[in-house]
């Protein structure tokens, strides 16, 4: 059998000298969508930052494997080029850098050799339409003065343009109104295929109605406390986290 698409092995991570992740284990196979649910402050963003190689998050032990290859020590840009993607919970604003030039630079780096840079523009235009993002956004500074929902649409746009094989979505549904939630979720769902994997971090069932997860994990105290099928998400929504954490 071939290696799983994505694997996290006994991952321990410290930030600012404090151990936040305390032994995370997770295996995502090709085509699978996994959801992670958990209270605020349990380390979900720490996990997603670490997966993408944030320099502030120090891996104490354990490893991250993409397609069987250990990527734990790689720089963020190298992980991106290996087709790992993180949709940020809080996308960063960069004044003076236009969305268009950012997207071009990013696509040039990640999808070089696969598509001609001259095709970028029409590709971007198509995806803008899918996500109902006005073209005027292209000349604005990246994420500057964008509403929460606009930022999340733009994260989704980047995911679709960069075509990752493994995507980590950190609360991509928070800050979205009902229409935006539908648009973003549909775009994520249609991105799903038998080769790709997704790790969806969320507080709510509502996005999971569109993107049915194969596996749901409950996160607490820096590790996976419980895993189950889609019914686990419904149970959490009904009964909260106490019953898992108390177990």
């Amino acid at each position, binding site marked *: 059998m071939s290696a799983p698409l994505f694997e996290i092995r006994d991952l321990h991570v410290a930030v600012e000298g404090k151990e936040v992740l305390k032994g995370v284990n997770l295996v995502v196979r090709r085509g699978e969508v996994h959801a992670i649910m958990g209270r605020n402050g349990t380390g979900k963003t720490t996990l997603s930052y670490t997966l993408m190689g944030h320099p502030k998050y120090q891996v104490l032990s354990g490893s991250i494997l993409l397609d069987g290859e250990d990527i734990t020590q790689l720089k963020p*840009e190298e992980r991106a080029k290996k087709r790992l993607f*993180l949709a940020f919970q809080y996308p960063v604003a960069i004044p*003076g850098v236009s969305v268009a*030039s950012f997207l071009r*630079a990013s696509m040039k*780096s990640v999808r070089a050799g696969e598509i001609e840079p001259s095709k970028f523009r029409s590709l971007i235009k198509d995806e803008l339409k899918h996500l109902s993002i006005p073209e005027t956004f*292209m000349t604005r*500074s990246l994420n500057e003065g964008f509403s929460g929902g606009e930022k999340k649409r733009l994260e989704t746009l980047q995911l679709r343009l960069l075509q990752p094989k493994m995507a980590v979505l950190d609360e991509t549904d928070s800050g979205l109104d009902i229409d935006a939630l539908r648009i973003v979720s549909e775009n994520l769902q249609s991105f799903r295929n038998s080769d790709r994997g997704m790790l969806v971090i969320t507080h709510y069932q509502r996005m999971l109605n569109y993107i049915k997860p194969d596996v749901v994990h409950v996160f607490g105290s820096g590790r996976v406390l419980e895993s189950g099928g889609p019914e686990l998400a419904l149970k959490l929504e009904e009964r909260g986290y106490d019953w898992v954490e108390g177990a």
Partner: protein
Amino acid sequence: MKEHQIFKSKDAIPGSGSRHAVEAVAGRSPATGVLHYRIPNTGGVHEIDIALGEGARVEMVIEQANSAEVESLSRVKVKAGSDSTLKLTVILDGGAKSAFEIDTSVEGRGARVELRGLLNAKGSQQFSLRADAVHAVSDTYSDLQVWCAARDDSRTVFNGRIHILQSAPRTEAFQKNRNLMLSKRATVDSFPKLLIENDEVKCAHGSSTSSLEPEQTYYLQARGIDRETAESMMLKGFLRQPLEWISDAAVRGEIESRLGVVEEEWS
């Protein structure tokens, strides 16, 4: 005591200097585009007088793009009459040492003066900008925003002062200074001041100094952009900000290309 300016008024500055005057009457000047003035590359002291009559609307860009060894002091005097509007962009980019002084007298009711400054220092360049705005009458507005980038062994100094006289109620005055320090050997100084003699005014000032933001670098890297490229994009982004509001695309393009911060067009 810290030295607050690269040159003092009493300093002897080598070079021949120059004088330049702009006198604007009611209406927009220039009728299309913007006034684009370059400080002559002669060194010495340069005097620039900008007088806005009642209802005059002026947009002007002053560039100091001297060659490497030149030292200069530029003194800009602005008089803003009733209901006049000035949009002034000042760019300090060339020369060895360069000081810029802008004294604005907001002396007509309803006058609005907006300034954007960019000090782009590298190598061993030393740049200072002193901007004083005096609000003498009611219902006036001024907004000063200055970006300083200091690389290598360079130095930038910003002195900003807003003075609102008792005779100027309902004045709004703002001042903002952002500094980007790109090397441990660079020096960045900032001295923003407010002097307010009337209670019925709206004022704000702020100054921040930082190096390139690691969270921004990480975000770009997470999108596959290597660190060096990311940092160069961020620096360009910083330098572009004070230029964005220049309404004449040709002038803006010319300056962007000289500063090396041109972005590919979208459409």
